């Protein structure tokens, strides 16, 4: 059975707002305040970064993640498909901008020989996707680094049942 997941509108709105604020704060001074050359380059670099972020948010809005027994597919502008039997690596990272490392988000990266699928934990059903990917990685005997194992455990997924036992 194929299940489909999407990024919720609330998280997309926050990302759009972030990129809009960033673009306003970098392009605004660049256009109106005649900054010094070094500052102008800095603002231009920041503007470029926020522009890429805006583009990525648009891509996310148009992307659907499809999950089934055969593999995982990201349908959208930067779509890719990975069959579980071709899965080469799984990496699950955790990021937080707070000093206490609370209230962060996870980033799942799946790779086969050619393609990479990147999914953030804001997507609906992220735990299900991570569980399916971890099961496939286990079947394939893929090496998981220490950080990935710790993060999987925090999602309630046992990366290596032999270790748990």
């Amino acid at each position, binding site marked *: 059975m194929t299940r489909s997941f999407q990024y919720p509108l609330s998280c997309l709105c926050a990302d759009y707002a972030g990129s809009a604020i*960033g673009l306003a704060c970098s392009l605004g001074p660049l256009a109106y*305040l005649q900054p010094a050359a070094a*500052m102008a380059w800095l603002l231009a670099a*920041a503007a470029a970064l926020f522009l890429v972020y805006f583009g990525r948010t648009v891509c996310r809005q148009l992307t659907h993640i499809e999950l089934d027994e055969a593999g995982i597919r990201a349908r959208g502008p930067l779509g890719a498909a990975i069959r579980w039997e071709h899965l080469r690596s799984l990496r699950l990272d*955790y990021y937080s*901008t707070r000093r*206490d490392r*609370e*209230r962060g988000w996870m980033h799942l990266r799946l790779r086969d020989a050619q393609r990479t699928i990147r999914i953030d934990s804001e997507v609906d059903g992220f735990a299900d996707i991570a569980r399916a990917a971890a099961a496939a990685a286990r079947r394939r005997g893929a090496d998981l680094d220490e950080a990935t194992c710790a993060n999987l455990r925090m999602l309630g997924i046992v990366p290596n049942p032999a270790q748990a036992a």
Partner: protein
Amino acid sequence: MLTYTIRRLLIMIPTLLVISFVTFSIIKLPPGDFLSNQIAELRSQGDKAALERAEFMRAQYGLDKPFLEQYAVWVGIWPTERGFSGLLQGDWGWSFEHDLPVAEVVGDRMLLSFILNFTVILFTWAVAFPIGAYAATHQYSWGDYGLTLLGYVGLATPNFLFALVLMYFANVEFGLAIGGIMDPEYLDKPWSWAKFGSVLNHLWIPVIVIGTSGTAGMIRRLRANLLDELQKQYVVTARAKGMPPFGLLVKYPLRMSLNPFIADIGNLLPSVISGSAIVAVVLSLQTSGPMLLDALRSQDQYLAGSFLMFLALLTVIGMFISDLLLAVLDPRIRLTGGMAR
């Protein structure tokens, strides 16, 4: 990683705005300003021409304008008669005390501070790393006890006191005058190899004085972190599998115990420019620390404000770099809580 970088950048924008506002407010907090103090002095002396000049400068630099307007002009988001001219435009303002642009006053001293404090950091790391690693791998040995004692002495001795003791002994025992960061004849002269050599000759005393406490602190932290790592299961497993001890130490536990040092980069960047102000005063070093103290004391608002803002910017950038490095090195969730959204 892009999301993380963008979110960290978004946090930096309000942080820098708040810091700039707080910095400017603190500089303006005491009643009066540099020029009003000057005007009062000139008035008591009856110097009319200088009085008119001071009043003219007061109007020219907008010190008679409302506080918020002065702040906006200083940052460079509000135009003056000459157009936008603030920090964003690279104009650090005018130093009333030195009667020069702030950039000119700060220039040479900033370079000297950078050379001094960067050497201090190199010295600290070069000494602390091997000693810390030795103390951790030879726990409770005579070497460990001896180095620990030295570390505590280094931590407990204030830098300015160490500087005074060193100056006294150098003078009394060896007849050496060790103050200053170069020979007096090179002061205010353009840079040359002779001047650079003179700086290097004078550098070792302040480097040892300033670096001792930092070295001691770093030895203690590295020892503690490394001991934690050495007791973990993966180290025991690697040992059991016959991995060479030195290779094992360098490849895994030493790398993991570096996280606190990477987290410290945020504090390191501003200290490269402004660190060790009190020692610089004691040793008569021509660095930026004493200049900042003087500027704060005399309410030279643009010199003090621009310099403090520059330090704040370095802190924020340092924190940003250290956060990015930490996120790359150890993207793990906290096991004590911290659920992802």
